[in-house]
């Protein structure tokens, strides 16, 4: 019987997406180190981890999964890539290991009754897109003001980039704005044509759905074609430091969704600086601690750890949880403000509570804006509109189940 709770960490520190993948992975690692150093683990259960480099490639990701999935005390997987998520979705169900995809993955997986093992925590591309639109509507002075407006979606030409389209189309139908789709071929180093199109159609807003080098290139092309950056809104994968840093002044005014804060103020960050970096055990450079993606890594890991803690509450404190037990924990997360404050995450994110029906737990997000040096919040919290998203999720999940000839989970299954 394992005496340690094992976290397999799939990451990519090389290759085209390394600049974004690295801080993310560092955050996850540092959080584990911090919990061990500060709290001695979860109720005395030490946390261990092993990283496995996927290079963002699906087959390497699958190999990593197969390599690490049967380690004793394996907890959950966070593949950090949409393609790998697709390939693992079915495998985790067979192996009974939860798969968390915070802010990415399949939007329809929010439906926990259909996707027992998937947890797209804190938001999907549908909720993200919905929030950007809400923000625009608010800025314009109401949904009706969007009528006749042009909104362009400049997106990474892959399932990741295409995911928000159904929601945007739905909203466009509802509110009568015009949606222009501008795909950018991966990895996105050459976007001249895309931005010529933007210049030609002169949209009122540009939504940016990019990852990696595509983001900074888009900003530079926007600058080169004179598109105002403050009319640009990125998804939360397009709104971190690596995306804007080398654009510098040129990215001033650019907005993006934020799932979390950035900066070193939160207590948890201070704890990490103290317990991990202070002891010379930081995974990455010190000044990266608290950056957007780093903090996102922390949150992901925190949710994983809290799921373990939650599971222990039910299945026995101080024991190593099996992955099935962790799944229950993930499905029954209840992190209210008090709990978050205690964890040192005050202000970093909104409370989150998951359930059997809702594997997302929270759809809150904000907009932040780059001022040339750092990200500053420029809006209040928004929550995605359930009325629109829920039926879409339900329909999508049903289609998925039908395709797979599978049944919805019985309500009784929620107790297991």
């Amino acid at each position, binding site marked *: 019987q394992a005496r340690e709770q094992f976290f397999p960490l799939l990451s990519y520190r090389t290759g085209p997406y390394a600049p974004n993948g690295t801080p993310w992975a560092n955050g996850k690692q540092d959080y584990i180190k911090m919990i061990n150093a500060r709290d001695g683990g979860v109720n005395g259960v030490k946390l261990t981890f092993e990283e496995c*480099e996927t290079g963002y490639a699906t087959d390497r990701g699958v*190999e990593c999964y197969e390599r690490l999935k049967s380690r004793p005390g394996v907890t959950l997987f966070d593949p950090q890539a949409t*393609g790998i998520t697709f390939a693992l*979705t*079915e495998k985790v169900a067979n192996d009974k290991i939860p798969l968390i995809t915070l802010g990415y993955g399949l939007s329809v997986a929010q439906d926990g009754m259909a996707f027992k093992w998937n947890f797209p925590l804190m938001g999907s591309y549908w909720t993200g897109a919905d929030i950007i639109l809400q923000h625009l509507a608010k800025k314009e002075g109401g949904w009706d003001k969007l009528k006749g407006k042009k909104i362009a979606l400049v997106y990474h030409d892959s399932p990741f980039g*295409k*995911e928000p389209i159904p929601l945007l189309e739905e909203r466009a139908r509802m509110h009568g704005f015009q949606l222009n789709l501008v795909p950018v071929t991966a990895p996105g180093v050459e976007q001249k044509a895309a931005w010529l199109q933007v210049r030609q159609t002169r949209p009122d807003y540009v939504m940016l759905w990019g990852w990696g080098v595509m983001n900074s290139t888009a900003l530079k092309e926007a600058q080169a074609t004179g598109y105002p950056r403050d009319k640009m809104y990125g998804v939360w994968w397009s709104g971190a430091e690596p995306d804007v840093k080398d654009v510098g002044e040129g990215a001033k005014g650019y907005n993006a969704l934020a799932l979390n804060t950035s900066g070193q103020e939160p207590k948890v960050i201070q704890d990490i600086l103290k317990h991990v970096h202070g002891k010379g055990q930081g995974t990455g450079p010190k000044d990266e601690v608290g950056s957007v993606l780093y903090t996102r890594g922390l949150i992901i890991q925190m949710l994983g750890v809290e799921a373990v803690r939650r599971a222990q509450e039910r299945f026995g404190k101080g024991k190593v949880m099996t992955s099935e037990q962790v799944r229950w924990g993930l499905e029954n997360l209840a992190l209210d403000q008090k709990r978050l404050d205690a964890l040192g995450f005050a202000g970093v994110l909104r409370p989150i509570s998951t359930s059997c029906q809702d594997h997302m737990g929270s759809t809150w997000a904000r907009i932040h804006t780059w001022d040339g040096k750092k990200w500053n919040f420029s809006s209040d919290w928004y929550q995605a509109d359930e009325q629109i998203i829920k039926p879409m999720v339900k329909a999508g999940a049903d289609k998925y189940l039908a395709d797979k000839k599978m049944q919805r989970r019985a309500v009784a299954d929620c107790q297991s």
Partner: protein
Amino acid sequence: MLYRENGQFKTSYRADQQIFPIVQDRWAIALLVAAAFVLVPLVASDYMFRAILIPFLIMALAALGVNILVGYCGQISLGSGAFMAVGAYGAYNFFVRVPDMPLVPAILLGGLCATAFGILFGLPSLRVRGLYLAVATLAAQFFSDWMFLRIKWLTNNSESGSVSVSGLQVFGAPIASPESVYWFCLAFLVVIALLAKNLVRSAIGREWMAIRDMDVAAAVIGIRPMYAKLTAFAVSSFIVGVAGALWAFVYLGTWEPAAFSVEVSFRLLFMVIIGGLGSISGAFFGAGFIVVLPIFLNQFLPAFASLFGITISTATVSHTELMIFGALIVWFLIVEPHGLARLWATGKQKLRLWPFPH
């Protein structure tokens, strides 16, 4: 007298034209196949199956297909990833659209879709040659990337362009456990390898090689370049397409076009060149090398470093892995430019002469 062919006189041309004319080879192959079917499943772990053996088998199959085109017919292609993708999505469409479509025919039909696609993109080879053709075949690659993202019909109107299959079975037996997937892939590989071997040692194989080695002379002895090249494209893309369907169906389960990106094309070309152009066994060697080596390095390097009390970060591991991988490729090419299969053959030749050096 461990490995000698002298003393084994062939009394008929039929005997001389067997696949493996040397007795020892025949036994070795028989043992190997038997071991692959029986012994390996007894000892291999789940991880071995899913992360190494199955991808190895499928990639070996794809490499086999690529080798027919590149190694035998001399048409360097960087579009193999596209052929795999067409095979995969083709099979997918047959599988989900035709009610009660059995698995094996779906995969074979996927292969046929790839054949059609391969012939289409093989047409320029009638005029364009060598490296020009190699680069031009990238058109197929980028076109297929685009096609499967953009044409919704091909992905059964899935919103994101990712598709998935499940509930695979053959004659009522589910293909889900690692052993069954392994056997399934192995069966495909053995059968297709056998057929391919037959082809390359038949008239058509000789036509391909003739076109590869000296096309003007080939034309003069009556070989039609068009027929030879297009059949090579057809056969090759069929095999690659089947491999693509297997990769998608039994290895990934759910996939997006990026699973068959240009990177895959490069890797396949790698396999055939490292393995040995124009040799069936080369595909196996090459696939083994390219599939297994990075995984091995990835796991071996940290262990190796920890021997010296050093812990290295994953980033360093994967950078070092890249460097060692690159260096090994170069090293192998220097040791034997004609690939691992040739190295193997030279080894056998030495064994034949043994204990005399020459």
